[in-house]
């Protein structure tokens, strides 16, 4: 989920601050990115050349990037290496997006992602305007590429049916996107040149060049059985799309029904629980939280809108905040029923916190009227 990924970036790296460099220095950063693309393309797996590049690089992040790639560092270890380098520590965060750019690029190359796609990821760190201009630059570069495919046909279902599939270009375009470039390229590796050229015309120049290079690579790496398997998988995706049942209009569930049907969070429950947290006195809320375990607080956070997260987290210590966030990371999504139970457990504890230690019979709790109504409404839910 995109917004979750974005939130994770903020949690990990904090505010990006200014994209930092302006004018000439920014131009140099973009040039360094062009150079990175060229070096990766030219050196491929030539470790010595990458070491040389590392020695010649002036920028620390770039130097580290080449060094990690030259030493064939595992993708998982690259993140740690950047953290340990101190480049991302608070004292040096003025160029945070630039350091993150090199971290992302190095990780992506180590994961075996095509250099052109890595370039697009990295250029995004410069912001929208530069990302689009770099995209257009890459597009022109792709158009002028001289890479050519040769004839290579593997018997298989895709080879026989691709002519038919090409009559539905929109569906074929979507299948390529959904299958992803590596699977698509492995499947197309066994097709005739005639059909491959028609397939490549369905994507833009950058996508076409990536597919072409991946097809060449697949032909070197895969045996014909593997290509046939890839073809079958691609065909399954293509036909799956055709046979995907379309729900009749009257069966489509919308509104509240749709949320309930999928066990999705009930918005009314979230709103009520949020209001309870917002209306409750800070002192009482703090006392309630102190009677709850980390996992109970984590479960409660799932029942709240972001505004209430802030209030709640501000009432616990930073150490406990971290522990709660760790619990959240480890737990899976919960369904509506569980959320209701978690919210009700919290409400009961809140009520207990409002009650004096020695409550005399007949004395009512001093709870504001609005809050009382919300608590009643939540506790009476089933």
């Amino acid at each position, binding site marked *: *989920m*995109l*917004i*979750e*990924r*974005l*939130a*994770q*970036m*903020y*949690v990990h790296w*904090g*505010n*990006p601050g200014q*994209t930092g460099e302006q004018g000439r220095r920014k131009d140099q950063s973009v040039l360094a990115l062009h150079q990175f693309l060229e070096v990766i393309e030219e050196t491929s797996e030539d470790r010595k050349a990458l070491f040389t590049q590392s020695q010649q690089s002036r920028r620390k992040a770039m130097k580290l990037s080449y060094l990690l790639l030259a030493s064939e560092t595992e993708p998982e270890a690259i993140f740690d290496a950047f953290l340990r380098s101190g480049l991302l520590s608070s004292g040096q965060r003025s160029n945070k997006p630039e350091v993150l750019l090199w971290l*992302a690029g190095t990780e992506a190359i180590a994961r075996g992602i095509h250099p052109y*796609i890595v370039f*697009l*990821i990295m250029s*995004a*760190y*410069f*912001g*929208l*305007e530069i*990302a*689009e201009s770099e*995209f257009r630059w890459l597009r022109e570069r792709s158009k002028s590429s001289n890479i050519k495919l040769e004839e290579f046909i593997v018997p298989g279902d895709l080879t026989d049916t691709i002519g038919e599939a090409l009559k539905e*270009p*929109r569906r074929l*375009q*979507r299948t*390529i*996107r*959904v299958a*992803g470039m590596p699977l*698509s390229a492995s499947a197309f590796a066994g097709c005739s040149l005639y059909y491959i050229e028609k397939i490549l*015309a*369905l*994507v*833009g*120049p*950058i*996508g076409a060049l990536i*597919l072409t290079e991946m097809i060449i690579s697949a032909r070197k790496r895969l045996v014909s059985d593997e290509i046939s398997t890839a073809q079958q998988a691609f065909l399954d995706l293509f036909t799956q799309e055709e046979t995907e049942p379309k729900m009749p*209009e*009257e069966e*489509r569930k*919308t*509104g509240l029904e*749709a949320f309930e049907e999928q066990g999705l969070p009930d*918005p009314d429950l*979230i*709103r009520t629980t949020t209001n309870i947290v917002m209306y409750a006195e800070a002192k009482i809320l703090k006392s309630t939280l102190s009677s709850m375990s980390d996992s109970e607080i984590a479960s409660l*956070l*799932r029942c709240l809108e*972001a505004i209430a997260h*802030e209030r709640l987290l501000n009432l616990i210590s930073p150490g406990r905040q971290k522990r709660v966030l760790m619990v*959240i990371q480890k737990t899976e*999504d919960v369904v509506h029923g569980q959320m209701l139970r978690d919210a009700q457990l919290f409400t009961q504890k809140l009520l207990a916190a409002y009650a004096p230690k020695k409550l005399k019979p007949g004395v009512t709790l001093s709870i504001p009227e609005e809050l009382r109504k919300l608590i009643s409404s939540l506790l009476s839910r089933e």
Partner: protein
Amino acid sequence: MIYWNADLAAKISCSRQEMETLPPYIDHLIEVSKAVGQSGIQPTADQFSSEKDAFFRYGLLLVSEGLAGEILEEILTVLLYVSDLKGIEFLRQCVAAEAILSIANGEDQDIMLRRLLPYCGIDKALTAMTKRKSDHAD
């Protein structure tokens, strides 16, 4: 569970009045999605040059190159992370990013709406979906 961060919350927050401008924007995104669904993406033509929203336009260009899924999401997330915009302008970028992912995956209009409407706030989302339900019934 969505992580909560004060910087992101501050960047995305906007007034009720500003939020009112979101539904028409979502209508526009749905219209473009419909058009792409009907005519497909012509990668050689400058099909999206008339799109005034720069973020949405760039996303569509990426889709036209065959990008989707994780990679496309990563690029869009980075663009949002470094975006200088705030408030409703930033929120619109978030909505556009979701629409781009939806178009790349070839999702139908209903699924796309379920992705986009929650950005209008839960009340608006429910009202809109309930209205759609009654429209279907009619």
